[in-house]
């Protein structure tokens, strides 16, 4: 497949994407589109973005050959793109810096964001502190409970965290609430969407800001491994780290692109978040894409051990890449992801985010089936410090709790 020139002027990737929002938001999106088009062509904007990525985020992030794990699996080589080493511990910061610079160009003093696991919320709170912007983060009340440490982190950074009590009280409801805030405060407020979804121009813009991941790999892999990888593997919730590493490789036809969705307790159980593997096209949160929905078109509640993948939709460009066959999408269960998480900790000395552990699990599944001269490049999109409680609970352990909070010791 040749490099394509999508989305079109109205934000469509084939039948997907678009601008499915209430009239009140159209002007703000038009302004954003115009401002982004001018920023995109402005060398000063690119230079500032590059400086921030280098000196504040710590880019380029390395590519790393997981030699020991590869040897144990006895097949293809596993390489990791170390987005976990970025400031704030994940790829999310790349996009937040780009959008915060745009907010400043638009003269908006206030930014809002939605967050599931809290990584995008933390990244947004971080850049808001860095650029002196007022910051409000919407988070489902269920996630506030599950990710208490990230809530504390956001507050330390000066953000207000609003616990959303409507609907399923998770990421999709946080997104609904952020949209409501934006409709109400559209003059003063910039909405920093955290993934390659939402109305045009967000899927385009977030992809562009995240493409730094794949572009670095294009130069790093020949230097470190002697050539480009045979396969690029990344986890897909909304799909921003995957889009960031996939997109620069789309024109490299010999490189297979594999997105890994969350199969939760198994696709057959109904408890999962695999919108591409098990969903149907529909319209939600401003774009047309694959959605987990019932026959009436109501959006389903999703499940994944990883809060960052726990979303019933997916970026529209992934829908397009799947339909055209340029990328494949597979699904990995909670148990498989957790097993990969533990192996990565013990064999490589790297604690991966549970999101990224889905991509690692798929790499560990296919590596033994391939010869040792094959190269798999996995997006290690974030670090797992935030997941300590989840992993401990799954393993039946309790920790990160002072003695006085343990009721049996009172």
């Amino acid at each position, binding site marked *: 497949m040749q490099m394509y020139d999508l989305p079109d002027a*109205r934000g469509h990737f084939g039948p997907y994407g*678009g*601008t*499915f*929002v*209430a*009239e*009140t*938001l*159209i*002007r*703000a999106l038009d302004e954003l589109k115009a401002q982004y088009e001018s920023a995109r062509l402005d060398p000063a904007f690119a230079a500032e973005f590059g400086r921030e990525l280098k000196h504040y985020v710590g880019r380029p992030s390395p590519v790393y050959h997981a030699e020991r794990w590869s040897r144990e699996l006895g097949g293809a080589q596993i390489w990791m793109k170390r987005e976990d080493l970025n400031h704030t511990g994940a790829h999310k910061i790349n996009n937040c810096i780009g959008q915060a610079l745009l907010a400043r160009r638009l003269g908006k003093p206030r930014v809002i964001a939605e967050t599931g696991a809290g990584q995008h919320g933390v990244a947004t709170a971080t850049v808001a502190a860095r650029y002196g912007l007022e910051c409000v983060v919407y988070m489902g009340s269920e996630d506030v409970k599950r990710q208490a440490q990230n809530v504390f982190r956001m507050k330390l950074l000066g953000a207000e965290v609003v616990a959303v009590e*409507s*609907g399923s009280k998770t990421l*999709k*409801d946080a997104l*609904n609430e952020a*949209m*409501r805030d934006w*409709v*109400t*405060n*559209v*003059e003063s407020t910039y909405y920093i969407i955290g993934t390659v979804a939402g109305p045009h121009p967000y899927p385009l813009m977030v992809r562009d800001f995240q493409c730094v991941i794949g572009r670095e790999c294009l130069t790093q892999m020949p230097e470190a491994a002697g050539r480009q990888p045979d396969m690029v593997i990344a986890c897909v919730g909304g799909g921003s780290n995957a889009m960031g590493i996939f997109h620069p490789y789309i024109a490299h036809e010999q490189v297979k692109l594999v997105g890994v969705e969350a199969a939760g307790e198994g696709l057959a159980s109904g408890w999962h978040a695999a919108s591409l593997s098990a969903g*149907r*096209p*529909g*319209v*939600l*949160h*401003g774009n047309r894409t694959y*959605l987990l*929905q019932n*026959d*009436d*078109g*109501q*959006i389903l509640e999703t499940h994944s051990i990883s809060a960052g993948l726990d979303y019933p939709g997916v970026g529209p460009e992934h829908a397009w890449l799947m339909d055209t066959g340029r990328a494949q999408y597979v699904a990995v269960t909670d148990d498989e992801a957790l097993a990969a998480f533990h192996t990565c900790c013990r064999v490589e000395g790297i604690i991966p985010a549970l999101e990224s552990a889905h991509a690692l699990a798929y790499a560990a599944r296919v590596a033994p089936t391939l010869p040792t001269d094959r190269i798999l490049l996995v997006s290690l999109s974030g670090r797992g410090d935030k997941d300590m409680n989840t992993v401990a609970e799954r393993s039946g352990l309790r920790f990160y709790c002072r003695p006085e909070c343990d009721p049996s010791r009172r």
Partner: protein
Amino acid sequence: MKRIDATFARLRAAGRTALIPYIMTGDPSLEATLDVMRALVANGADVIELGVPFSDPMADGPVIQRASERALAKRTGLKDVLAVVRRFRAKDATTPVVLMGYANPIEAMGAAAFADHARDAGVDGVLVVDYPPEEAGEFAERLGNHGLAPIFLLAPTTPEARIDAVAALARGYVYYVSLKGVTGAGHLDTAEVARKLAEIRRHVTLPVGVGFGIRDVASAQAVAAYADAVVIGSRVIQEIEGGPPSGAAARAGAWIATIRRALDAMPAKRAA
């Protein structure tokens, strides 16, 4: 569509303002919805807007969200909404019914099937909140071919240049969202509404309804001074949820009657 046009023509000739309550289908039950619709008409409603429940009502405030959640808890879907309209239409041949909701339930049914079923059930207009004109060309044409009016929103943030694009597709009436925010919010600026309506009327010949934030006699009268129709949603739903389900129709009817009387007490507008 014909029922909408006839209703506005009749009201315009009489110099009266249309009163359009919005309720959520299936809240608290499908049976109650039918009773509430009839009570609203008996107490002076000119058009009924029927909400289609959706799991993610992004443009709605807490009152309509709650109503949507109650309806979904009883598994109310688009098919049920159409069935209610069919039953309503069997006994009321004149009051227009407009469906208001989000795109996904319609796309799940399929736009073609939806248009057929809606026409057959006796629906008159359809407002899809997340179909702005940019994404609604084909859908609006399909509705038009079925005699259904595509209703569109205009907002305080809509630039004047864009109003023509909306006017080109809109039929029946246009719905001006009187504030930046979600349904049921409380900061209505009447002077701003008056200014914007004058701008809209330079481009739109259809009747203009105004909604979002109208919750009592005073705000209804203030808006009616400029608008062809007053749309009231959250406040009506508060009447429905504010007591036992068996009394929902009586409460909603009694409340809408106070607004009807207030509108009728205003001096008649000169017919255009």
